[in-house]
């Protein structure tokens, strides 16, 4: 306990907690909508694009977080255009995009020497090394995402539940889809810093999947997803500090454990009743 307490005094640990909790909340809330839209893998696809964005940043010497943000948000917009216009199957478009993003990343790595280590950190997450500038950007964007979700709550919920009726009620369905995808792009880039490209989809999907199992209404789904995400990230980071394990692994395994507990306690409960 004392070790942990001393951990809270360290600047790097405080920064990790602050950024992790903010980003985790944004990911989880958005994740509820994406999971219900059966569009959770869009996070995975966009994460690959942000990987290319990071590589571009490292290659040309920009702040990787910023180049990743720009590239990912632009691609999110393009993805929606492609889907709405060409009628490409959603998962095919995502597969095309992920492989393209990853290929660009690999190409840039091979062209430069010495950036392998940095890029590696983005693959697997390096929240404990986050800089204070990155913390500020992450927190500001996470708060912005949460505020947008609150502000457009009705539009997001209605179009997710019944897109046709929502459109008839005067909600611009396509613009809502666009906005959600752009928000997904932003949170993915932020989440990549926390748990890495390969696990960022977990931040969106796991708390949402757990919450959807037990929520009786939509309000509860959002509240539970938020609580699960915040506690998983808090405990996961503490564990990673205490046991010296990778933060990303701690957070994701913890979340998965909670999901399994809910799943099994529910199925046992169902059998009895």
């Amino acid at each position, binding site marked *: 306990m004392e070790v942990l307490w001393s951990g809270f005094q360290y600047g790097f640990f405080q920064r990790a907690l602050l950024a992790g909790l903010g980003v985790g909340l944004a990911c989880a809330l958005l994740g509820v909508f994406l999971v*219900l839209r059966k569009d959770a893998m869009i996070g995975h696809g966009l994460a690959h694009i942000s990987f290319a964005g990071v590589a571009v940043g490292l290659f040309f010497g920009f702040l990787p977080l910023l180049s990743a943000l720009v590239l990912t948000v632009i691609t999110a917009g393009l993805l929606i255009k492609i889907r709405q216009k060409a009628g490409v199957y959603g998962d095919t478009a995502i597969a095309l995009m992920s492989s393209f993003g990853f290929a660009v990343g690999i190409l840039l790595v091979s062209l430069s020497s010495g950036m392998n280590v940095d890029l590696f950190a983005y693959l697997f997450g390096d929240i404990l090394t986050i800089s204070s500038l990155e913390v500020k950007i992450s927190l500001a964007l996470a708060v912005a995402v949460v505020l947008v979700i*609150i*502000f457009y*709550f*009705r539009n997001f*919920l*209605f179009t997710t*539940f*019944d897109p*046709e*009726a*929502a*459109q*008839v*009620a*005067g909600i611009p369905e396509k613009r809502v889809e666009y906005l959600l995808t752009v928000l997904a792009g932003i949170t993915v880039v932020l989440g990549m810093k926390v748990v890495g490209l390969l696990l960022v989809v977990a931040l969106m999907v796991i708390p949402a999947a757990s*919450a*959807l199992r037990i*929520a*009786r*209404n*939509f*309000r*509860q*789904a959002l509240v539970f997803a938020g609580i699960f995400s915040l506690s998983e990230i808090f405990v996961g980071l503490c564990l990673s500090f205490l046991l010296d394990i990778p933060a990303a692994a701690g957070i994701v395994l913890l979340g998965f454990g909670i999901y399994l507990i809910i799943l099994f306690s529910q199925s046992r409960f169902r059998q009895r009743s």
Partner: protein
Amino acid sequence: MPSDVIESGRLDSPLIEVIGVSFGYNQLEVLSEVNLNIYSGDFLALIGPNGAGKTTLIKIILNLLKPKKGEVRLFQQKIKEFKDWPLIGYIPQKATHFDPLFPVSVREVVAMNLPQARWFDFWTKKMKEEDVLRALQVVGMENYIDERIGYLSGGQQQRVFIARALVTHPRVLILDEPTTGVDAPTQEKFYDLLARLNKEEGLAIILVTHEIGIINRHVNKVACLNRRLVYHGTHGEFCQSDFFRQMLADGHHMIFHKH
């Protein structure tokens, strides 16, 4: 043509006018020169075989699809300029096809349709409670307000969707095959509810349906669509038409042929 007969001499103006509308998906022509007027107090059955273009026509009326030719006017306005969407209640064919695990309560489903609803209206119990509760009372679902919608039966879900449409106090209600997969007694109660809304509140109703059985009891107008509008008239005239006799002859085909 019967439609001219029933529409001439009316003093009130139609709520919905479909004027010479044609539409096709790619090359396939689905609607050809359709004319149709809906007046206050109408309870119109829009019937026709599968693939006749009924859903397509509804979507054009709702501005979800743009006609290739012709135009739609809603409440005397061009559809592009029309802003009063709360005046039109819509229950899509796929309304009850949502994921049963979708965690949304009856209260939230109805509140969704309130244009002025903000996030806190979904969170506090007091705000907008009256509107939502009243709409649920009309359909007799007020005791289920906090139930998760996926846990209700198909017939109960349909009532909630009616409440969702009614919460904005519409003047027209459009239902696209609302009772597919609902048992007969429940259907009967459902159509009684619609008839009551039509009579007591003067709500105009467009009911897309396969079942000619129900049109005998409740509706006062019939439009039969098969790419073109092949029949349009009052219910009384419809029952005496050759068209109806012919339909009865093919009747069971039309009733039981589900997608």
